[in-house]
């Protein structure tokens, strides 16, 4: 019986260092492993003994693509532990800067890193040669995200204006208002890119995922909400560890997240879209319809469309907040130290990111736990790979390898976040 082994030792166009190993015996899959070998990072251990107010800035260093997710999750958890809650004005500013992160992260992945898979192009440079206008539009969209981060957060990467309790200073009104023309251009541009991408030839694949996301009573959840699933889960953020667990597997430096019954689940754009579709704006729903998407998308390859739809939504939200923005008189609330325990969870571009901290009376961290989205998606990525390999057994090794890498990129995996990156092996034995 013929044996096939596909092995990719360093996956391109994903964040961090990871690898894929597939071993086939005839038509049987013997092993599919998505391994993360980015070195362990020990953030949770070195937070112990640090002042709780330092947790947003320290944890933001977990990732250069989604620092806001860490800043907001840590701030929320510490604020809960300290028994304080921030004002509605601060909530809106946090949502505004988070929109910036969604825009820049989603556009980078969708247009520059994932789109080449569908165009049979090796990388974004080739897209720039074939379709320079698309790349110019994508870069301009991404820059809007960066500008939002700079104006609200003081810097495009690892913002410096955010803190536990709010913001060090209120963003300048004139600078915030000046963002509006580009935001309005971006709304139409994001819709056009989504519609252009919807013409891609998507692989046939569907799976009945367990979609887990935040849900907020009033808005499409970004920075706050309850944890829900399409299978009836509806819990407060503090109950996270009662329903989910992480395990260490020998092949990977990232923990693998599971539901308590051991099953895999999916976090990220597809989950948010499925659970919160009703809360999208009419204009965004119209774009989804133009792209041929229903209220739930079960084809993981179409996550690229949902990302662009979320970009349009984030641009609309940012424009809404910018239009009515008045600098808050009090950009932050006081957060005196006390002993306590707190939990925070926000929707990072790749899915829910959970934090919990315990603090002593001086406000020093005695326990820290951070569960990033890619750890949670790892078991589901392996399940998707197994399904995709089984359905495409007749493909030549090079094509199958391409399809496997594309499958992994459906998740925009942030491997450095998950380690607490990629190498692909397909072995046909």
């Amino acid at each position, binding site marked *: 019986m013929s044996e096939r082994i596909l092995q990719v030792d360093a996956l*391109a*166009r*994903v*964040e961090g260092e990871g690898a894929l190993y597939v071993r086939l015996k005839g038509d049987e899959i013997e092993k599919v492993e998505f391994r993360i070998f980015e*070195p362990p*990072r020990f953030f949770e251990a070195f937070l112990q003994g640090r002042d709780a107010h330092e947790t947003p800035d320290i944890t933001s*260093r977990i990732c*250069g*693509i989604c620092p806001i997710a860490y800043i907001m999750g840590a701030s929320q958890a510490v604020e809960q532990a300290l028994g304080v809650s921030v004002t509605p004005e601060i909530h809106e500013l946090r949502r505004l800067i988070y929109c910036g992160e969604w825009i820049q992260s989603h556009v*980078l*992945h969708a247009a*520059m*890193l994932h789109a080449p898979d569908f165009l049979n192009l090796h*990388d*974004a*440079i080739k897209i*720039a*040669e074939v379709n*320079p206008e698309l*790349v*110019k539009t994508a*870069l301009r969209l*991404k*820059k809007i995200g*960066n500008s939002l981060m700079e104006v609200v957060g003081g810097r*495009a*990467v*690892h913002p410096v204006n955010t803190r536990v309790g709010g913001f060090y200073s209120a963003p300048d009104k004139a600078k915030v208002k000046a963002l509006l023309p580009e935001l309005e251009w971006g709304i139409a541009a994001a819709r056009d890119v989504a519609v252009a991408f919807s013409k891609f030839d998507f692989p046939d694949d569907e799976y009945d995922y367990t979609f887990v996301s935040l849900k907020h009573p009033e808005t499409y959840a970004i920075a706050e909400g309850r944890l829900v699933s399409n299978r009836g889960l509806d819990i407060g953020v503090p109950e996270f560890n009662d329903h989910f667990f992480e395990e260490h597997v020998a092949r990977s430096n990232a923990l693998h997240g599971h539901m308590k019954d051991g099953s895999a689940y999916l976090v990220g754009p597809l989950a948010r879209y499925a659970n919160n579709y009703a809360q999208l704006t009419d204009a965004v729903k119209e774009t989804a319809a133009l792209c041929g998407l229903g209220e739930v998308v079960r084809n993981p390859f179409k996550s690229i469309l949902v990302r662009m739809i979320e970009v349009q939504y984030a641009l609309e939200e940012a424009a809404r907040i910018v239009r009515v923005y008045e600098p808050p008189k009090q950009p932050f609330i006081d957060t005196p130290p006390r002993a306590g325990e707190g939990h925070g969870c926000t929707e990072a571009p790749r899915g829910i990111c959970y934090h919990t901290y315990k603090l002593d009376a001086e406000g020093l961290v005695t326990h820290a736990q951070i569960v990033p989205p890619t750890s949670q998606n790892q078991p589901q990525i392996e399940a998707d790979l197994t399904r995709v390999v089984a359905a495409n057994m007749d493909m030549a090794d090079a094509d199958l390898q391409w399809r496997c890498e594309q499958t992994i990129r459906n998740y925009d995996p942030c491997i450095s976040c998950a380690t607490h990156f990629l190498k692909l092996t397909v072995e046909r034995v």
Partner: protein
Amino acid sequence: MLIVGIGNAFRSDDGVGPFVAEGLAAKGFSATVHAGDGTGLMDLFDKHDRIVLVDATRSNAEPGTLIALDAAAAKLPADLFHYSTHRFGLAEAVETARALGTLPQSVLVYGIEGEDFGAGTALSPVVESAAVALISQLVESLGDVF
């Protein structure tokens, strides 16, 4: 004219670009540090006719080895500068800009081979020596431009 030091100063020798940029800024040159993904670099290309990029390389050469490339004259080797977030780094930024017709008139690229890319804020001695030598070399060669 702008000098851009690329890299993450918290990943040891990946900080060699920022080290050189800060050294030149202290001598009055227009220099900046770029961390994060490569698309942000392309924003800088739009604003300057002449640009100097300094980054760490990982090519299995001897640590501290300096390479100098004229990116306006020829394509950059794809695998030289790949220590970057989401694999969209210096070479991708330069080549995408070339395809879009937005590459500045002059783009000089200097790479210093790193030794250690683990967590840490110090450069390896051999990398630091190479960086100090590059600062002196650039002060001399770029001095006329300013």
